[in-house]
């Protein structure tokens, strides 16, 4: 239980394990606070982070354009609210990571609608597919036609920004019955090769749709072959893993690896194991935006942790 929902600031104390030569940039736990009935997760040390960020980016996830059920009849409106919130940030981020489930049913129209809305950010957007983005007859062909330029395999790639090495992984294609997310041998071999030339002091950010750690196995909230993939990152001093899929903020720190899942901009899902199934969670309309949101990630300065601030949309409502 504690293993999958480690929110304590104590988890940031990875120095005690003596594993890190460089603590330039590491993820931290997320502290939950509840204010006025609205749950928000705010990083310990947020104030410091917001003062002098050298470089920042935003994570948006699970926009689910095309969803129209009671949990949120208008996910386009909440996506626009999320975009407005990003545009209102005091320091504009360098780019946006979208951690998948852009659409609900992978139709060309839904991709078009999402692209039109996201264009309003005026920022580069880096995508990975969610399982909802690969429902076309080509098992993700539509996604790759739009976002796959320069990617390998089912859409994985890497790039360098602000001194950080970003790795986009795909763990939603070709899933096996009885399993969870899956990367596959080809992608893991590529990952090993991709990081082989990097110095161990290079900060790494990995992003993928499904959690790369076992958040809750009975609901398939994990990736079956995450361990052999992450083994290739074990030598790095700072690895931050950003995922979506479960429509809520859950974090865990394990040595030099910090795992974070993000909120959806469309609808919430239940906490792990709460209720019979992980379906869309309907909350009272006036509380919806309190459980949706975007994530602002800042590299502040050397020797300070990566600052992760999860903002609920209620802040802009």
């Amino acid at each position, binding site marked *: 239980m504690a293993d999958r929902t480690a929110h304590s600031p104590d988890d940031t104390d990875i120095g005690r394990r003596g594993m890190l030569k460089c603590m330039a940039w590491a993820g931290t736990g997320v502290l939950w606070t509840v204010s006025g009935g609205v749950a928000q997760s705010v990083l310990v040390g947020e104030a410091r982070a917001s003062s002098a960020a050298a470089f920042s980016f935003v994570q948006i996830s699970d926009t689910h354009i095309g969803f129209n*059920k*009671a*949990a949120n009849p208008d996910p386009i409106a909440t996506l626009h609210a999320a975009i407005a919130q990003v545009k209102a940030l005091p320091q504009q981020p360098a780019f946006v990571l979208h951690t998948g489930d852009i659409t*609900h*049913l*992978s139709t060309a129209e839904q991709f078009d609608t999402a692209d039109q809305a996201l264009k309003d950010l005026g920022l580069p957007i880096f995508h990975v597919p969610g*399982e*909802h983005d690969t*429902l076309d*007859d080509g098992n993700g062909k539509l996604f790759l036609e739009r976002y796959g330029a320069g990617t390998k395999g089912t859409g994985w790639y890497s790039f360098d920004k602000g001194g950080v090495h970003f790795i986009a992984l795909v763990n939603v294609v070709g*899933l*096996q*019955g*009885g*399993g*969870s997310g899956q990367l596959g041998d080809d992608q893991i071999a590529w990952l090993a090769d991709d990081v082989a030339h990097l110095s161990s002091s290079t900060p790494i950010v990995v992003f993928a749709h499904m959690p790369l750690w076992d958040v809750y*196995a*009975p*609901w*398939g909230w994990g990736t079956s072959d995450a361990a052999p993939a992450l083994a290739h990152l074990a030598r790095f001093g700072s690895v931050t893993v950003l995922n979506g899929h479960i429509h809520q903020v859950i974090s865990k720190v394990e040595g030099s690896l910090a795992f974070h899942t993000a909120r959806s901009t469309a609808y919430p899902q239940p906490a792990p194991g709460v209720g*019979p*199934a*992980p*379906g*869309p969670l309907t909350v009272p309309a006036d509380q919806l935006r309190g459980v949706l949101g975007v994530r602002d990630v800042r590299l502040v300065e050397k020797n300070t942790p990566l600052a992760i601030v999860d903002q609920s949309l209620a802040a802009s409502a």
Partner: protein
Amino acid sequence: MFVRPSPRALYLVAGFMLMAAAVVQAPRAARAAEAAIPARIVNFAFAPPTLTVHAGGAVTWTNADDEPHTVVADDGAFKSHALDTGDAFTQVFAKPGVYAYHCSLHPYMVGKIVVQR
């Protein structure tokens, strides 16, 4: 007095025989179509998880969740499109055997069709 049947009458007789044959055949075809065994997808689970049908029988899955699901054979033998709320998918099982299947969006959702002779 022997009356030789006209060609027209022979056609009629043949026609009646064909119709009779059609009448005999029709219920069998209709039975297969009507007898598609209903299954539900509810709360991220196939219900019931195991179903038994006779060879030539069919199963119709209907999605009762607010979340799309698919019905995909583990060996790739059949595959539905994404089924949104209320959508249905019917698969005919011609050959006896055991067919394991899952939802490709939520692969921990699994089911089994046992096809008997």
